[in-house]
């Protein structure tokens, strides 16, 4: 039997800041803040390291309470503070749903349209490395060429994948039980072709499911947990992390079909648990208010704030400077253009008269422009573009291309992507130009500087 999550006892003890509840809560927070697949080596970090990571993650999200940062990392005390931190996270965002979505078993062929987890944001946090030897510019150019080549490879592989996928969808159309889907996905077809599959298949299937890739047993390492009720609201947040070897060992005797069924069943139980949680959530928040009450009110310690502020990584500050530079350049251009047009306009229409008809027209124009610009502003102020859907989508082939209300049509997505492409190309050209200008400006100050050709196609 698999280890289960923290019992309700842990949470009751935490309310009274009992030390024995502390380690479990550190672990729970770690799982919530840094959800990692079980085979990731980070999942088995020492508790102190986990605690430190939890602190830093909370800090970067803006956790308001200073007490957390002061907690010892050995798990000896602080359970109430950890409980508060957990509730803070739960209050801010739909944590259970997010965790479910992360470990969801994708049954279909999926494609993500937005770029949340795209290659665009390279992983390693760039360290402040001072290279010992100056790097030859040719090495950089070689790297850039290699990158271009890899992209071309990706594109051609992707095109082939699309052709094959399209064929599979076409050939299996009409046999899916779910009418809205109509045809099988690759995962479903593979399950039919080889339900009992050999070792080779199993190793393959645990790969990372992203964008047209397959995720047959992605959720394999998460076990089912008992359902939730008002007394056990936490159980489903607990993910099995303690005995991954045991878990995988048990399941390796199952055929992929059986394992998939089991995973899906687990997911269903977890879904039910989250639904129950949502229905009875109010009870929890009322209880948390009492927890907060038991905390001694802290006097604002303004003097000690210096040590505990969230750290802004240094290179982010650099990015702000860059935006500032871009905006200022833009402002200059606009100023020039606007003044020029204004002068021309005044000259032309200065004598047009100030009749009521004229001022009505002016007002109408002003309102129209304000409305347009307001819409433009909303485009960047909203974090999420409502027209741009978020997350992966299941690809479905239909000859007529008919789509329901909630569905996306490929043609529309193509339009959106094309406009995005145009926008990004403009930005890129702009940046390349700035780079050239900047270097040219400074070249005079530093004779002998070698100009590095800008990145580009």
């Amino acid at each position, binding site marked *: 039997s698999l280890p289960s999550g923290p019992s309700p006892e842990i949470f009751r003890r935490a309310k009274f800041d009992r030390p024995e509840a502390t380690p479990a809560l550190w672990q729970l927070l770690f799982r919530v803040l840094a959800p990692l697949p079980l085979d990731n080596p980070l999942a088995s970090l020492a508790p102190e390291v986990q605690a430190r990571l939890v602190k830093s993650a909370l800090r970067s999200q803006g956790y308001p309470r200073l007490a957390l940062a002061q907690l010892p990392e050995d798990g000896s005390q602080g359970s109430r503070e950890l409980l508060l931190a957990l509730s803070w996270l739960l209050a801010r965002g739909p944590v259970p749903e997010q965790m479910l979505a992360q470990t969801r078993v994708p049954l279909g062929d999926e494609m993500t349209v937005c770029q949340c987890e795209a290659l665009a944001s390279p992983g390693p946090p760039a360290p402040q490395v001072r290279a010992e030897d100056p790097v030859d510019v040719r090495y950089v150019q070689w790297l850039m060429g290699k990158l271009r080549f890899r992209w071309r490879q990706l594109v051609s592989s992707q095109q082939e994948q699309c052709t094959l996928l399209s*064929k599979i969808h076409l050939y299996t159309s009409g046999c899916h039980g779910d009418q809205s889907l109509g045809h099988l996905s690759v995962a479903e077809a593979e399950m039919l072709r080889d339900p009992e599959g050999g070792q080779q298949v199993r190793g393959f299937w645990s790969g990372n499911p992203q964008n047209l890739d397959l995720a047959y047993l992605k959720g394999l390492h998460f076990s089912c947990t008992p359902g939730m009720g008002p007394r056990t609201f936490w159980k489903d947040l607990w993910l099995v992390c303690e005995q991954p070897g045991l878990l995988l060992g048990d399941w390796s005797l199952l055929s992929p079909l059986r394992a998939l069924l089991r995973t899906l069943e687990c997911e269903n139980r977890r879904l039910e648990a989250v639904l129950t949680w949502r229905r009875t959530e109010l009870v929890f928040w009322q209880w948390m208010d009492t927890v907060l009450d038991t905390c001694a009110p802290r006097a604002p310690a303004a003097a000690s704030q210096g040590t505990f502020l969230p750290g802004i990584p240094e290179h982010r500050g650099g990015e702000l400077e860059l935006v500032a530079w871009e905006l200022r350049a833009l402002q200059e251009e606009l100023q020039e253009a606007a003044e020029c047009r204004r002068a021309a306009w005044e000259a032309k229409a200065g004598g047009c008269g100030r009749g009521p008809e004229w001022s009505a027209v002016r007002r109408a124009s002003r309102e129209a422009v304000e409305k347009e610009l307001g819409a433009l502003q909303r485009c960047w102020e909203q974090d999420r573009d409502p027209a741009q859907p978020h997350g992966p989508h299941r690809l479905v082939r239909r000859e007529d291309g008919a789509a329901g209300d909630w569905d996306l049509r490929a043609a529309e997505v193509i339009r959106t992507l094309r406009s995005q492409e145009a926008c990004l190309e403009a930005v*890129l050209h702009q940046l390349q130009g700035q780079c050239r200008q900047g270097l040219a400006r400074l070249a005079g100050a530093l004779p002998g500087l070698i100009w590095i050709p800008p990145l580009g196609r």
Partner: protein
Amino acid sequence: MLPRDCSGRLVAELQGALDACAERQLQLEQSLRVCRRLLQAWEPTGTRASEPPPGPETNEEDPPPACTPSPQDLKELEFLTQALEKAVRVRRGITKAGETDKVPSPRSRSTVAPPGTIAFAPPQNPGRAGGRASDARPTKGPCQTTVPPKGHSERQLLSLGHKTRVGTGARAPRPGPGLRDQQMAPSAAPQAPKAFTLKEKGHLLRLPAAFRKVASQNASLWAQLSSMQTSDSTDATAAKTQFLQNMQTASGGSQPRLSAEEVEAETRRLWKACSLLRLRMREELSAAPTDWMQEYRCLLTLEGLQAMVGQCLHRLQELRAAVAEQPPRPCPVRRPPRASPSCGGGADPAWSPQLLVYSSTQELQTLAALRLRVAMLEQQIHLEKVLLEEEVGGLERRRTRR
């Protein structure tokens, strides 16, 4: 030579980009392998020409039955039998009640199997039929417990062609995938079910009933979750907001400091603003106004854009001031990708994937190609920014140092 300071970061970023590409390529290739295999002939398990499973013995053929097993072989056989028995136990535990247990009793008669592989003899076949290569599909016999051919129409059926291929009423000892004859009568001399391709028979496949049931339950639960999300009870929301406020006051009541994530999000927003404003400016400047009203509009727009840029710069100053107050600290841990997605994860109403409907291969290819192009552009922009930041910033620093 590149200035010393910037080379390190640029090279690191480039290598990161290369690694990401390589990983992506690997996934694609895995995927391609599966797809290609699906489109080839689906051979029934007995005659499948798949890669031999890993095992110390490369010889897939049966040793002739007359060969006396060596003590080594017997030991291995014993080990295998134990493993198989355990497998059967596990399977029995999982199998729904009522499914016939088709584990063949003559299993123990399956003589020397290549070690490292688990091969079952089919019930009526001691040894292997026709000297066919034992391509060690690990679970031949018990596989029938998982999808027992009970003749239910919901089971995987190939209603049409299969009967004619396999022969009347003959049950394949190792039933082909997805093709189950209606009456799986045992046969003494099993005939190999013929291979077929997805092209010919794809539309006749059926998913197993067990799977369909679980999958539809899954879909409906996700739908419930989505609808619950959109119609979130106001009580709970109010309670949450109240709780957050209480926490804020309890922790000292000072104005919430700007977190690293928020600064990042704001910076991204400002970037987006910059590019949108610039694009709009270009549009206005390139449009040729035909009458004075349009000209007036154009003028107003340009002035409006100018004002907006001013607002952005103002906001930027505020951000700069907030950042300057706080000591910079290196980022110790790589933030999980969903922590602050550029798309803003919190407000997503649909947790399970919506459908993306396409109508032709061409369309799908265009879609995929565009997506890659956008990703590539974003990466290029990022690298260009890095270059700018480091180089120009570095040069500026050097200049001001003089």
